[in-house]
Each structure stands twice: as C-alpha cells, then as structure tokens.
C-alpha cells in the first residue's frame, strides 16, 4: 500500500535529530518492545503481516507518533485480528473470558533469538535474471503489503547480486503462505531515480528486489 511508511524521497522533514541516545526514553517504549517480541514468538503471525499492520496506521498519525507507538498500534491490531484478545479487553486491561495460553518462557528466549527467522527457501523456479542484467521494474500500486517502494517503480537498474530465493513478502503478508521468489540487489543511478538536476551522477541506490517486481530485461 502507498502508506505514510513509504518515505523514500519525501521532502519537508528537516534535519536529522540525533539528540535521542537511549533506546527507550520512556518505560512504556521498553514495555512495547518486550511485548511485541514476546507475542511475535507465539507464531500467530509472520514478519510481513506485522509490518503490514503498522503500515495501515492513519498517515497523519503515523508521521506524528513515535516509533514504538507504531509497534503498539501493530501489536494491538494483530492481537485483535487473531482473536487472542478483544477490544473490550484492551480497554479493561484484564481478560474477560477464561481462555488462557502458554507463553514462551524465559529459558526458551535465547535459543529462539539465536535461531532467528531465516527467510531463504529453495525454489524450483530457475532465476529469470543474472548479475549484470539491466532490468526495468513494474509499476504497481497494490492495496496490500509490498516491499517495492514507490520511488523505484517503473525504473531501471543493473543487477549486482543474486541472493537465491527468499519468501515473497507480498503473498506472505496476505495469506501467510510461503512462496519463494528470487531476490536480487539492483543498482539504480541517482539520475535515473531523481532526475539529473536533483542528484549527482556519481551517486547510486542499491535495493533488494524480488523477482516478481521486475518487468523485463532491457
């Protein structure tokens, strides 16, 4: 979706504010971080579903709230969507039925973190492109989750890496299904993306691009 999260190339935000040096200036942010990771380990949703939940915040709210408020919005949304809690319970701050679950416990944490969640997966499809190919990207504006930012759509660049196949996020967010898609890193010249008056010929942008985002070799 063309949400407020898709920030690449937006103007008007002013200088970078480097003043905040602790991760959790407020205790509630620390709590949201912990709750989000702990709930994520329940396995009720995947990474792409949880990103999509954050992206659906009202754009004005997204841009005026802090990072962990995005996470909080996403977590509450997913808990309700999955039927783990309901809105009345969020309001009440306590369970309103007798259902109880088994959480991930302290001793399981380290090994879950260490294992991580690799998204590479074997694909039976041969890669359609190879390093050195110049390709153009599709121009699509789906209402669902996508990892193809607006500022790149329709543009052309050169493939510099092929990472094998990874889980395709668009489908993964929509249905939870794990479909493999070949993943490439593509180099785009800044001139191609922003125009020659607005950028320097020397500069370029490297982006990881899933094969379904590529229109054709050119």
């Amino acid at each position, binding site marked *: 979706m063309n949400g407020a999260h898709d920030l690449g190339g937006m103007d008007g935000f002013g200088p970078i504010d480097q003043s905040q040096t602790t991760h959790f200036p407020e205790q509630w942010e620390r709590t949201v971080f912990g709750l989000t990771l702990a709930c994520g380990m329940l396995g009720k949703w995947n990474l792409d579903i949880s990103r999509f939940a954050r992206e659906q915040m009202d754009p004005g709210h997204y841009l005026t709230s802090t990072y962990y408020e995005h996470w909080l919005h996403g977590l509450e949304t997913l808990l309700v969507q999955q039927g783990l809690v309901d809105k009345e319970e969020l309001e009440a701050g306590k369970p309103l039925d007798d259902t109880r679950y088994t959480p991930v416990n302290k001793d399981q944490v380290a090994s879950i973190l260490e294992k991580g969640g690799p998204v590479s997966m074997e694909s039976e499809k041969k890669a359609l492109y190879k390093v050195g190919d110049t390709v153009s990207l599709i121009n699509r504006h789906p209402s669902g989750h996508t990892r193809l930012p607006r500022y790149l759509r329709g543009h052309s660049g050169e493939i510099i890496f092929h990472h094998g196949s990874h889980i395709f996020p668009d489908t993964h967010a929509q249905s939870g299904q794990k479909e493999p898609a070949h993943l490439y890193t593509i180099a785009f010249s800044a001139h191609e993306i922003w125009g020659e008056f607005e950028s320097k010929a*020397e500069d370029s942008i490297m982006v990881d691009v899933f094969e379904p985002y590529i229109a054709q070799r050119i």
Partner: protein
Amino acid sequence: MSKDHTHHHHDAPVSEIESRVRRLEQLLVEKGLVDPEAMDELVDTYENRVGPRNGAAVVARAWSDPEYKHRLLTDATSAIMEMGYAGRQGEHMQVIENTPQVHNMVVCTLCSCYPWPVLGLPPTWYKASSYRARAVKEPRAVLKDFGLELDPSVQIKVWDSTAEVRYLVLPMRPEGTDDLDREALAALVERDAMIGVAQVSAP
C-alpha cells in the same frame, strides 16, 4: 526489572499512552500470552548485551586479517556467525566496504531494518522520518547533518534494506593505526561508521 511490571513512574502523572501500555501488559500476562520474565530477558538482551561492540569486533578483525576480510566480503553471514553473532535480524548479512572512491551508507526507507546481532537496536534517528525520507534522495546533505563532507568525486552508494538482507558497512581503517591490535582497533569503531554516516578517525 520485574518490579517495573506493576509499578512504573511513581511520581510522574501517567500519560494516556502509558496507561494504554500498562493495560495491555496486564492483559497479556494474565491471559498467559506473555511471560514477564521472558519479556525482561528479551529487553535485557537488546538493551544491555547486544550492541555495536559486536560489529566493531568484526570490523577490527577484518582490518587485521586479510583472509577473514575476504570471507566477510564474500559470505558475511557465516563469517559473522563464526565470531558468535547470529540470529534475529541478522539471518542474511552483507558487508560492504568503504574505499577512498566509494562511500556506502545504509537506510531502510520502508521501516527500520537493521543488523541487530552486530549493531544492536537502531538509534532513534535511523527509524525517524527525516533519515528514512532523505537518505536515498539527498545522501550528501544527510551526511553533512552528521558532520561528514565527502569530496564531490567520491561515489555515494545508498543501500535501502527492502528485504531481509541486512547491511553492515566496513569503514576504512584510519591511517597511523598499524601498531594497534584488534582490541585497540575495535575501540575506534563507532556505530555510525558501520551504518555509513561517519568515518573512523585515528586515536
């Protein structure tokens, strides 16, 4: 930390969002969805144990050991895992090398993708609108905000982390550090240099 789960900020008035988060936490704990001790363990891991010192050790070793550097640049995930840094948000690593001709910097325009096992949690500015919006469009102006003015002839490559590959910048080793051992070298390497918004200075 467990004591904080029931009593936060005794003195300050409770903001709307604080009270919303407190209700959520109580609900999830009572429902059995979250174990408070597991939560503390998670927070403690990323707040206190995993951080940019990991990345600095990787960089210092690459500066000191050409064979390791070669492996790091060709298969970063396993070269980093070999140092004991692996897992969540670092499953697929790529290391990119700064040279006198090419300066690399990393951003995630769509959210906040960042290599946790080697750098810990991203700084606030990395997650904020201004950096995410501007890094890809006006990288030189952004670097100036960080006090770094590169020669116009230096090529800038901005890496936008749109998939699960996580990028770590291998900064240039500063001149005059030939005598330093890995530990002393690592002490020179700050987080920002490994994101690509700073360079490493000699001591």
